[in-house]
């Protein structure tokens, strides 16, 4: 009674404005670090430690980027960021194709076919997500060493071709939403299970496959521990490992070059995120919410 429609309306308006103000103020905390990275990456060395600090470089030093790419240190020689980028892309192609192909086949077996022990096998699959990686780390290393795979990319992509619990779960959730009548109709028409999978289900599952590809690409790009353990020769490093190696050699000091090198590693991920936001949100919706 006391709160008439006009008063509620103005209260709503106030709430909107307050939300907006809080969001704008807070957004600085999230945005400024990245802007600072960019700002530092474009400064000459002396300006990075200028007091008080400047946001806009007084001398724009674009050379930092090629310098970071082709840094030639006296002690360790040339740091080949282009080679790292090339290595990372190759590795990403191997993991992305493996994750998409094998997880879709496996998830089809869990989502659309009935066989005894299926529920148990799926429960075990989910349970493997609880196993901390360090538990598997040492035996995997000694096993791959035994295979002669240490120092190659094989430990980083071959296991991906055998599926991963997270992706199986994600695709299974999606496959189950596709009407079963479609499979039945195809079966009655004499279509084989492989045919149903590749001609009926896969074309409909493109959005979910895109999510798997996206998540796998990002995970491979960001992975640090795997390359750290298995890659020995500097020429074979990925960007994440190469960046850490670069920082380790530089120590503090040349922050402008370090930030330029970091920006090179970060930029593709941010660009990818901007262009794939829809798939991203869908992917999270597919996995997170069911609790």
């Amino acid at each position, binding site marked *: 009674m006391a709160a008439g429609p006009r008063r509620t309306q103005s209260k709503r308006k106030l709430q909107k404005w307050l939300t907006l103000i809080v*969001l704008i103020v807070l957004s600085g905390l999230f945005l400024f*670090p990245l802007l600072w990275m960019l700002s530092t990456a474009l400064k000459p060395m002396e300006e*990075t430690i200028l007091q008080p600090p400047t946001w806009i470089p007084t001398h724009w030093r674009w050379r930092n980027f090629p310098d970071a790419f082709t840094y030639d240190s006296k002690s360790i020689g040339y740091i080949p960021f282009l080679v790292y980028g090339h290595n990372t892309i190759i590795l990403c192609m191997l993991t992305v194709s493996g994750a998409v192909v094998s997880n879709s086949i*496996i998830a089809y077996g869990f989502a659309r076919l009935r066989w005894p022990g299926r529920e148990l096998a799926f429960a075990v699959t989910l349970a493997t997500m609880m196993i901390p990686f360090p538990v598997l780390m*040492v035996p995997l*290393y000694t096993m791959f060493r035994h295979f002669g795979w240490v120092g190659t990319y094989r430990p980083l992509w071959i296991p991906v071709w*055998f*599926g991963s619990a997270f992706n199986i779960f994600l695709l299974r959730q999606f496959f189950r939403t596709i009407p079963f009548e479609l499979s039945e109709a195809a079966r009655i028409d004499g279509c084989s299970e492989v045919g149903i999978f590749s001609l009926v289900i896969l074309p409909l599952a493109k959005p979910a496959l895109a999510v798997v590809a996206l998540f796998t690409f990002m995970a491979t790009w960001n992975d*640090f521990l795997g390359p750290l353990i298995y890659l020995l020769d500097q020429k074979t490093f990925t960007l994440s490992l190469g960046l850490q190696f670069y920082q380790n050699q530089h120590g503090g000091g040349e922050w402008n070059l370090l930030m330029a090198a970091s920006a090179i590693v970060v930029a593709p991920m941010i660009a990818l995120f901007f262009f794939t936001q829809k798939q991203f949100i869908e992917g999270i919706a597919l996995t*997170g919410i069911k609790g």
Partner: protein
Amino acid sequence: MTVFAASDKKTPPADDPHGRMARANRRDTRTGLSFVAPWLVGFLIFTLYPIIASLYYSFCDYRVLSPPHWVGLRNYIDLFTDHDYFLQSLWNTAFMFIELPIGLVLGLAIALLLNQKLKGMAFFRTLYYVPSVVPTVASSILWLWLLNPDYGLVNKSLALLHLPHNFTWLNDRVWAKPGFIVMDLWSVGGGMIIYLASLQGVPQYLYEAADLDGASPWDKLRHVTIPSISPVIFFNLILGVIGTFQYFTQAFVMTGANGSVGGPANSTLFFSLYLYQNAFQYFRMGYACAMAWVLFIFTLIASAVVFKTSAGWVYYEGEK
């Protein structure tokens, strides 16, 4: 009549117990298994075997080049008795757990703000999430620079706001871990986006009903929103527990590399960092495996605690 006819169709023909139907079942099983075969093989080679091997190694003296040699409980006894580093790494990791409630409240608060219907919200959502897609190595190096005691943006900004600003962050045993926490909270968007997705699934009629009862915004948050999204809070908490125990890359990049073992006075020698060092720098693989199993057990206990207490506050739809 029709009901009977329909149910008649479904009963298997009694005169054909091992014939067509059984054959069809066998075929289904074969097809099903061949689809999941890659996973079964992968599970045996890349999960089951390593688990068993790691448990075995944890009871062995194992240094890669020579075969493992059974020593019983020695590694486990050593862990808790004669190595200070182990207990310190355990304490360092335990300290990082204070990040979980902070991250939860912050992530949820931002998600609530972003869930309001305003123009330009998509822009803000993107902006708050972007730090979460920055590769960990790059964000670690960035924060090494931001937390620089003399020239870092963090201390400079605090000075600008006339707040205490002489923090030594990563160079100091007391401030190193808070420095890591500040950095991690920057990528709180990862949890936020999951909360946001679930907030959008809370049925509107619940809020309408609460409005009719004259509920305040706080009441609605406490009695409608939080119970509705509690499964997701639970999910994030479990992920947080697992992630905290495996905190590695940031510590390795920021304080663990370069010969210094684990930051000032080992204050950032986290559990997984020390485990990695044992396995791949000191080549004490058996000892590392014992650590891994302690980690596994702690993870299970912590998750079980969250799970047990969750009975009181997690509501699954249609369960009440």
